[in-house]
């Protein structure tokens, strides 16, 4: 009798849970199905061996596989080449702490095929700092104290050199080849995301005050970045970091995604600009020193989006949209390719 009652309760509970499946969950499932076949994500995450490895997965999180699986090394910050056939990333010795702001200086630059096969060290420890792809994938651009250098991948020779204009980390080349963006000291202000004209070397601020992890919108006219605006009362006045979209000239400034209580970093668009991926962490800025943070995907057309109660943020941005947030495994600095 008791067993029967317990089974009945269990069954009723299951039915109740199923009936109460929130509409949001249905929308999340729909988003997962929508992105499932749209290329691949690559990202760093802790492997079973305890070190940071690189993983490939479909954008819905399926077909996840460890493509480095190296117990003697820490791998981080992968980027697909623009045609998706190659990867670049940094590899450090086992136990090295991956610093969220210094990773571009750390370890060796590794070039590999897009599926992680055939990894080759391109340079020694600390060489080719902050390397990132040229639009045609034949060059990498690196950031040094005395300037920015463009290297030909075949010859390893410097084909161009110019002033870094205050940029000190996270340098990226626009898909159309006309611009660079990065985090810079600019007009006396640090943590400013700037845009540099690739032809003239002229610099302009795209967004000032507490910004980082910039990356290009596929249109090459806008930059996606993380920003912690001043004057937020949350976190005892420290505030929370949100995802923003700004025009390269700084004229347009638009919230993309935020949630009070979380810090949003590592924002990147899907190659067609239809989706946005990012990481979401309740603590600020040390995801790479720990185990990463949950990765999330939203539709670009559903932004600006605020989730959670977020009373303070909603006051500042009363007009937002709603949409599903697809939450994936923990990772760091995800990148997306349709190839």
């Amino acid at each position, binding site marked *: 009798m008791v067993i029967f009652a317990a089974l009945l309760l269990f069954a009723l509970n299951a039915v109740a849970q199923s009936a109460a499946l929130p509409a949001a969950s249905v929308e999340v499932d729909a988003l997962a199905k929508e992105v499932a076949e749209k290329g691949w994500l690559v990202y760093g995450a802790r492997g079973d061996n305890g070190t940071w490895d690189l993983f490939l997965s479909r954008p819905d999180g399926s077909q996840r596989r460890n493509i480095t699986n190296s117990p003697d090394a820490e791998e981080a910050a992968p980027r697909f080449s623009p045609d998706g056939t190659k990867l670049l990333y940094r590899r450090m010795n086992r136990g090295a702490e991956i*610093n*969220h*702001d*210094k990773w571009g*200086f*750390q370890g060796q630059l590794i070039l590999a095929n897009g599926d992680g096969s055939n990894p080759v060290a391109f340079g020694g420890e600390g060489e080719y700092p902050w390397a990132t792809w040229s639009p045609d994938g034949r060059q990498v651009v690196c*950031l*040094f*104290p*005395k300037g920015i250098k463009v290297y030909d991948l075949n010859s390893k020779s410097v084909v161009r050199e110019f002033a*870094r204009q*205050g940029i*000190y*980390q996270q340098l990226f080349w626009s898909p159309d080849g006309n611009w660079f963006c990065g985090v810079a*000291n600019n*007009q*006396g*202000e*640090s*943590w400013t995301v700037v845009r540099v004209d690739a032809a003239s070397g002229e610099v302009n601020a795209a967004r000032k005050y507490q910004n980082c992890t910039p990356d290009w919108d596929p249109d090459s006219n806008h930059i996606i970045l993380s920003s912690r605006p001043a004057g937020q009362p949350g976190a005892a006045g*420290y505030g929370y970091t949100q995802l923003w979209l700004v025009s390269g000239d700084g004229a347009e400034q638009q919230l993309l995604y935020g949630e009070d209580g979380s810090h949003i970093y590592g924002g990147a668009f899907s190659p067609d600009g239809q989706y946005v991926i990012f990481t979401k962490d309740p603590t*600020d*800025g*040390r995801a790479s020193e720990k185990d990463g943070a949950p990765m999330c995907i939203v539709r670009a057309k559903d932004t600006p989006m605020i989730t959670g109660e977020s009373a303070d943020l909603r006051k500042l941005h009363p007009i937002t949209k709603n949409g599903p947030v697809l939450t994936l495994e923990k990772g760091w600095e995800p990148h997306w390719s349709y190839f």
Partner: protein
Amino acid sequence: MFTVFKKFNTVRKVVAISVCFLALLPCICCGKPAASVPSKVSQVGTTEVTAVLEEVRGEFVNRANYDYAFVMKYKVTAVHRGSVEGDTIYVAHYNPQKPRSAAADARVPAIGGNVKRFRAGDVHRMALKARIDDYYMGGIINRYFEEYKGVIYWAVWTDDAQ
């Protein structure tokens, strides 16, 4: 009996004080600890000065996750090595909230000194490099940007020179 004991005690005190004085004599004579190690201030950087810290403008940013260099204003009283333009210079110190002996890290490995904290009016002997952008790649808080566009020195070694 009590007087004898008191006299003996006084003699003992005099002897003890004399021994201590003799032991400390080398330090007193040369004005520094007997076993002092030569400072790196004369070995690193390209310019070496003694200067008064005139101003620390505003508060340091005390956020553990973020490293930065902070620009301070100095009045130079002596140039020991190299040269500086004028007697007012602007010097950036890395993570100024930390004692100089604990400020170096993976990004900035080769800095140091014995200054424990920065206070206006203190006198520092510094080994410097110029310009900062040629040697340091990281956030810089420069609250003099509107009024001064010249060279910002990078502090490699900072010793107390009171």
